[in-house]
Structure formats: structure tokens, C-alpha cells
């Protein structure tokens, strides 16, 4: 599926070998290319590591969601118990131990939902900000490495010497 965002001008290298792809990324970065991107059919940690991108910052959103869930769970239990103060089983109206179970479940539920929303937002934004030219092979059996910026001739050479099957300019 072709992205509606038009990628910037650059050089695209197509690889069929993971180790060579990772090596090419490292060589490109060592040569001073700061904007190197890639597309791959599987979550290869070697490639992500070679790119040296910072760790995703989903943590704070997800943790906030989980904490919000704890508060919401307790608020629901305590609020409704006070609104309908009926003693059951001789227990206190605000009986914390059973409410912990509800708070835990709501925490997991809200945390997971926030995690999902955070993933959709961050992955979508990342895809739009750092697009890679579309090629159906990148979701099948090839790795695409895309270099943006100056010195594209040098990037072409690095991609070829590191085993790219195909190198092309993207206008």
C-alpha cells in the first residue's frame, strides 16, 4: 500500500540478507549519513539497533494509563459503595481488599487501551515523518534501506559495496 506521503529525495538500496543490511546501515552512519531509514518484513532487532534510533517513549503514556486505571477502579468502587451504602456480608461499606481486584482489572484494561492508542499515534506519526518509498517486496522478503540528505553518490557506493541487490535514486 503506497503511502500518501511523498518520501524525500534519496537513495534506496534493496537487500536480501539481514547481516549485510545491518552492515550497510552501520557503514552509512559511519560515513556521516544521519538520516538512514529502513523497511523490513519482520521485526529484526539487528536493523533497529544498527539505525541507533532512541527507544520508543510509549512507556510514559502506558504507565499513565495504568495509573489512571487504578484510580478509576478505586473511584468506581468507593463512589458507588458510598452512593448505595448497603452492608453485605457484614463487610465495611468501603471494603478495600475486594476493591483492589477491580482496581487491578481496570488498571490493566485502561493501560492496554492507552498502549494501543499510543502505538497507533506514534507509529503513524513516525511513518509520516520518516517515510520510506513503498515496495511490496519490503513486506515479503526484502529489506529496504533509504538514505536521505547530502552525499547520495557516496551512499550509493556504500550500499553497493555492502551487497545491495538493487540501488536506485528516488526523486
Amino acid at each position: 500500500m503506497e503511502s500518501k506521503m511523498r518520501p524525500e529525495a534519496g537513495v534506496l538500496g534493496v537487500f536480501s540478507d539481514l547481516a549485510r543490511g545491518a552492515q550497510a546501515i552501520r557503514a552509512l552512519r559511519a560515513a556521516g549519513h544521519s538520516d538512514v531509514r529502513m523497511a523490513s518484513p519482520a521485526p529484526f532487532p539487528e536493523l533497529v539497533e544498527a539505525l541507533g534510533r532512541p527507544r520508543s517513549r510509549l512507556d510514559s503514556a502506558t504507565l499513565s494509563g495504568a495509573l489512571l486505571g487504578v484510580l478509576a477502579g478505586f473511584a468506581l468502587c468507593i463512589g458507588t459503595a458510598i452512593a448505595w451504602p448497603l452492608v453485605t456480608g457484614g463487610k465495611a461499606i468501603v471494603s478495600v481488599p475486594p476493591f483492589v481486584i477491580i482496581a487491578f482489572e481496570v488498571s490493566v484494561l485502561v493501560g492496554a487501551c492507552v498502549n494501543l492508542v499510543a502505538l497507533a499515534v506514534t507509529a503513524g506519526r513516525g511513518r509520516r515523518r520518516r517515510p520510506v518509498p513503498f515496495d511490496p517486496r519490503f513486506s515479503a522478503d526484502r529489506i529496504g534501506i533509504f538514505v536521505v540528505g547530502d552525499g547520495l553518490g557516496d551512499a550509493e557506493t556504500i550500499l553497493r559495496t555492502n551487497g545491495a541487490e538493487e540501488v536506485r535514486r528516488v526523486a
Partner: protein
Amino acid sequence: MSSLASSREIQEKVLATQGRPGAVHALLIVAAAAAAAFGAWCWSLQIRYGLQVSGLNRPVGWAIYITNFVFWVGVAHSGTLISAVLFLLRAKFRTAVYRVAEVMTVFGVMTAGLFPIIHLGRPWFAYWLFPYPNERHLWVNFRSPLMWDVFAVSTYFIVSAIFLTVGIVPDAAALRDATKGWRRRFYGLFAFGWQGTDEEWRHYARAYLYFAAFATPLVFSVHSVVSWDFAVSILPGWHSTIFPPYFVAGAIFSGVALVVTLLVPLRRILHLESLITPWHLDMTSRVVLLTSLIVTYSYILEYVLAFRGPPSVERSTLAYRATGPFAPLFWTMVACNCVFPLLLFLKKVRARPAALLVICVLVNVGMWLERFVIIVTSLSHDRIPFDWAGIYRPTFVEVGITLGSLGWFFLWFLIFVRLLPVVSISEMKEASVHGVEDAA
């Protein structure tokens, strides 16, 4: 080994499972639909004539419906165990089997969720289970374990469904790019614009880790909560502190056994033998063996605790369970859950899919009987001897609804395997590049 040479082959094998079903598959769908329709008809009889058409009567007020509820919730546990817990433990064999387990989880919870509603007798009041603002300011009782169940099972369903959907995204993108026409549009819906860029994988890997981290305590909490439905009561046979770990182990046991039960025919019908290999079945069956031993230990412990002190009501209940009118079911349960799985110690048994299938079907029968025995025998033998005259027997309506639930579950499952990938394409590609099975 770091070539992606086998990636396209993996994708094509999974893509070949999608599309028009073959004769066997179509027949299975029709059979499942017929069973579900029969179950729906039986339920309609119960709605029309009331719970008198069931075998529920004093003292057995909980029976086959609650048995089915606990069984299906238990079955649903393996999905999260395999996809989340084994993911965190970096168990490589999960790659080929976890999607089946996740799908089973979602449809298992969907099936389980029907039974409390069926058991209500007046299903149109099911919404009373949920807290909602109303003009009389009436609220649900959060101190009741039944309410904990509503929250635990609902949360489990939603989180499992999210986990399954997120896992499908990269695979749907791969199939979207490999197909044309309506299929391309259909897979596009599940791909959410995925292109496999480094930015997407970076956030995806982190988010997936968090989903696993959220789902893992759920595995242990949900069936603990289900066990508290029984354990926090004062009924002998139910009121036991070992119930939460006992139920969790039993849930994983039955769930993983059902995964094997589904995988063995599925890999053959869908020609996935090269992706779901004997090694995957071997490793999964080891989990069955391990949990069988835990369950056996729990059974023994339950009796030891009851019989080591002075005579008690609990001892009387457990003796009734093993020697009373339900004794054949009890001993069948022991044979299915404790004896037959011991064959899995033999490597040659684990290497034979047909043998695994037979053992795992027996385990599922045994685990269903376990829930039935716990629920029904404890209620049958209460503390009023006057009540002991009545022996619970399920009516054809209850049996029909139970069969219908099997049909309902398999109908969804069989449709799913033809519409969406039943093996994780992206993780299989990663495993093939890293030579997971070769290294194992």
C-alpha cells in the same frame, strides 16, 4: 544464516491457507454451524419455558452452565500464556503456535461469556451485571466475587482481542501487498496502513512488550478470580485456599491441550506441516505434561489436607466425590488428567501427532469433568441430608446448549483460519532468518 530466502516461501504457505475452504473444511463449518444452531434452539426453549427445562434444582443450583463457563475461561488461558508469558520468557517454540492459541483465547472467552447469561435464566437482565448510572442510584456489589468475574473476564476479553489484533497488523500488511481485489482491501483494514518502516517496528516492539506485560498478570488473575467464585463461599469442597493456583494450573493445562488438539488437524488440513513442525508439538506437549503434574499434585493435596485432621464436613464431601454416585466421573477425570498425560514422558509419544491428539482430547474431557465434579458434587452433598436424595442429571436442553457452545466456538475458529493468518508470518520470517529451530 541471515538470508531472507525462505521468507517468501513462508508467506506463500500462509497465503495458501486463505481463501475458499476445501471440502473437509466446508463440512466442518457446516457441522459447527448446525451444532451452534441446535444450541441456540435449546436456549430458546429455556428462554420460553424457564429454567424448569434444565436439571437445576435444589441443592444443585450451579451445574453444567457454570461448568462450561469455567471450562471455556480455562481454555482461553493458554492463548495468553503462550503469546505473552512465553514471549517474556523468550521461548522460541511459541512462534508457530501462538496465533492459534490467541484466536482460541478470544473465541474461548466469547463462548465462556455466554454461559453466565444463559445461567441467569432471564438473559434480558444481563445488563444488570454492569455498573451503569440509573435514576434509583442502584449500583452493583463490588464486594461480590461474581462482580469481580464480570470485570476480570471482560478485561481479559478486551486485552486478548487487542493483543490478537495488534499481532495481526504486520501479517495483514504482508498479505495486503501480496493480493488483489477484495482481499487486498480486506487485509488493508487489518493492516492499518502498516509499511514496516523502522519507526513502526520501533514503537511496535515496545508496545508489544507492554501488551505482554499487561497480559501476563491477567493469566494468573482471571482464573484466580474465577476460582474465588467458589473459594470465598463456605461450601465444603469449594472453600479452599489452594483453589487459585489449582485453577490456574488446570486452566493452562486444558488450554494448551486444546491448542494441541487444534494444531494437529489444522496443520494437516491447511498443509502447514513445514511451519508447525513436530518440534513445536513436542515443546507444546511438554507444557501439557508439566501442568498435568501440577494438577495431579493439587488433587493429592486437596485430599491430604482434608484427611489429615479430625473428621470434617470437607472430608465427607471429598469422600462422596470419589465414592458416591459421581465416582465414575471422578475416576475418569483422574485417568484423563493424571494418568494418560504421563505417556508424554515418552519421546516417541510426543513425536507422534496422532498420539498427542488422542491424549489432548482426553485431557479436555478430563478437565471438563473436573469442573463438573467440583461444582456438582460439592452442591449435591450439602449439610442437609434431606437434600441428598436428588442427583443432578443434565437435561437435553443443557446438553444441547453445551454442544451448541462447541459449535459456536469452532464456527468462529474455522471461519477465522480462512480469513486471517493462523500463523504469525512476520515472526516466522524472523525465526527463519535467525534459524530458531536449527539452534534449538
